[in-house]
């Protein structure tokens, strides 16, 4: 079922949580709302669920205005960051809750509830733990129970609020892969909120980047990552270096060095900021040509599979470069030595300075 959000605004006192947000989620997609805390992503999710009212605008579920319906009537599955399990009920009763509160006419009989619950427990691989209480489960297990509980009523839409935010890194990775697989199996329209760009890039069909109550960009993960619409998105998705340079006659200059750009530069001459990802800089001892920047190695640090090199370039700014281990081993950089840095795919933003 599709979700349409039309010009929604929401204020909490003087704080504008959402300003004129419009968004559409096609049926069956898995969409990530990505943004820093305070960007309004959770508020938007709660508005879709009917847990929060709108000041302006409206939400359409399956083309139908949802405003007259509250959370109970919207048939939306909601998964909370801190699980919100019923801690006085065991796993079975938690999952069965949504079915057992149905009006008598539509409520399945006991046996039907039982088989439905066990079907879901099988899906989350927790059949053998059906009689445990939430306090006896690990964080990852609790969140899976919360998901099964939400799915039990066969919601038209599944909403997840930072579902993996409270889990440790390893479990988080497993669960998000599992969520992706699950979505591929059941195809329920899903929206999940996250501030973890890696999670959004890995799991989602589409990413909606939010900042300060507004949608700043939406697109597929590779669109958003490869073609950030503005400096904020560039900075938020992945690590980035900044060059403070100038544009003269459509050519970007940095301390006399011409920089290659990934897209043609439009707009007038003047100061501009170039953005380049940390893995889009090549380091060499002998220059490649005129697009090299001379720099000094300030530090070399191994971080897992990568080697992080800190450079200070001729323009006086810091550069952070991520090299693969093989490349770093061949180069064998020494702290203090002079090298050439050649950035690829530099993006310039002339007007929008702010991050």
């Amino acid at each position, binding site marked *: 079922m599709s979700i349409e959000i039309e010009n929604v605004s929401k204020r909490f006192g003087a704080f504008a949580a959402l300003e004129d947000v419009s968004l559409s989620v096609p049926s069956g997609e898995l969409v990530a709302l990505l943004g820093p805390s305070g960007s309004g992503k959770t508020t938007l999710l709660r508005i879709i*669920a009917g*847990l929060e009212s709108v000041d302006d605008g409206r939400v359409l579920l399956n083309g139908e205005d949802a405003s007259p319906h*509250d*959370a*109970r009537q*919207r*048939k*939306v*599955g*909601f998964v*909370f960051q*801190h699980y*919100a*399990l*019923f*801690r*006085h*009920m*065991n796993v079975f009763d938690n999952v069965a*809750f*949504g079915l057992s*509160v*149905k009006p008598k006419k539509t409520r399945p009989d006991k046996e039907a509830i039982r088989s439905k619950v066990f079907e879901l427990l099988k899906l989350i691989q927790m059949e053998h733990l059906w009689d445990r*209480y*939430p*306090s*006896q489960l690990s964080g990852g297990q609790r969140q899976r129970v*919360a998901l099964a*509980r*939400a799915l*039990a*009523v066969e919601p038209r839409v599944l909403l997840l609020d930072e579902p993996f935010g409270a889990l440790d890194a390893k479990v988080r990775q497993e669960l998000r892969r599992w969520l992706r697989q699950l979505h591929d199996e059941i195809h329920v329209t899903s929206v999940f909120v996250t501030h973890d760009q890696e999670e959004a890039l890995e799991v989602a069909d589409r990413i909606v980047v939010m900042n300060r109550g507004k949608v700043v960009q939406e697109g597929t993960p590779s669109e958003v990552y490869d073609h950030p619409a503005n400096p904020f998105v560039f900075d938020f998705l992945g690590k980035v270096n900044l060059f403070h340079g100038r544009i003269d006659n459509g050519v970007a200059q940095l301390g006399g060095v011409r920089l290659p750009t990934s897209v043609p530069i439009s707009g007038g001459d003047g100061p501009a900021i170039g953005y380049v990802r940390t893995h889009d800089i090549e380091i060499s001892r002998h220059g490649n040509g005129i697009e090299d920047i001379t720099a000094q190695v300030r530090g070399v640090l191994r971080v897992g599979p990568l080697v992080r090199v800190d450079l200070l370039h001729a323009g006086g700014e810091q550069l952070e470069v991520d090299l693969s281990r093989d490349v770093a081993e061949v180069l064998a950089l020494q702290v203090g030595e002079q090298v050439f840095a050649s950035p690829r795919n530099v993006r310039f933003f002339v007007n929008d300075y702010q991050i």
Partner: protein
Amino acid sequence: MARSLRKNGTAGWGTLPGFAPTMGYTLLCLVIVVLVPLSTLFFEAATLTWDDFVGAVAAPRVLASYRVTFGAALLAALTNAFSGVIVAWTLVRYRFPGRRMLDALVDLPFALPTAVAGITLAGIFASNGWLGKVLEPLGVKVAFTPVGIWLAMVFIGLPFVVRTVQPVLEEFDREVEEAAACLGGNRWQIFSRVVFPLMFPAVLTGFTLAFARAVGEYGSIVFIAGNMPMVSEITPLLIITKLEQYDYAGATAVAVVMLVISFMVLLALNLLQKWSRRYAEQ
């Protein structure tokens, strides 16, 4: 002994000074404050022969007083559990002018000398009192009947339930209610199946405290009860009466029975309490 208890009873070295001093202090307190006074009761009662003892504690008038005391206390604690939950709910869930005043008012029955409460209640509910004037023509007699006993017990017990339920409601995770709503639960289902079970242990604690207080209450009840033997005479009054007649042994015998009944009820409530929290982390 202490060493083996420490090994089995606690999880190694904590922040507090340690097992020996804290356990020692606890025992000392309980012995001086509770055990010594109560055991003298038993010694005093033991001066009676078995037949005298039974005669003292099982006389029809005494049996009737147990029924009145424990029956009224149970009803009063139930009433308090009900109204205490509503008062706590109102104070926690809603913001309205005068909320703080109302909140402070709840504790007043604690602060008031019980005799004052009794006289006030008797005054109001007597046939010429404010409420008595209205109720009596309707056939409801409160003052000088068992209903008056119940009322006095409700008055002194209310703060217990409110004050035990309030913090639990304040810390209640609203997301749990939201989750229940998203799953299609209506208000009543959310309350009866999610909110109430989670506050039940606190309600039970409040109920237990209110019950214990009501059983032991004397000051406020004697003024409004009428104290008619077999009808509205409470056991504590009977004990006082016996004391005034210099029947120390008889008084303590009745007291011992009261103590044993109270202890058993409280023990049962404690077990129920434990069962109601069986889902909590072990």
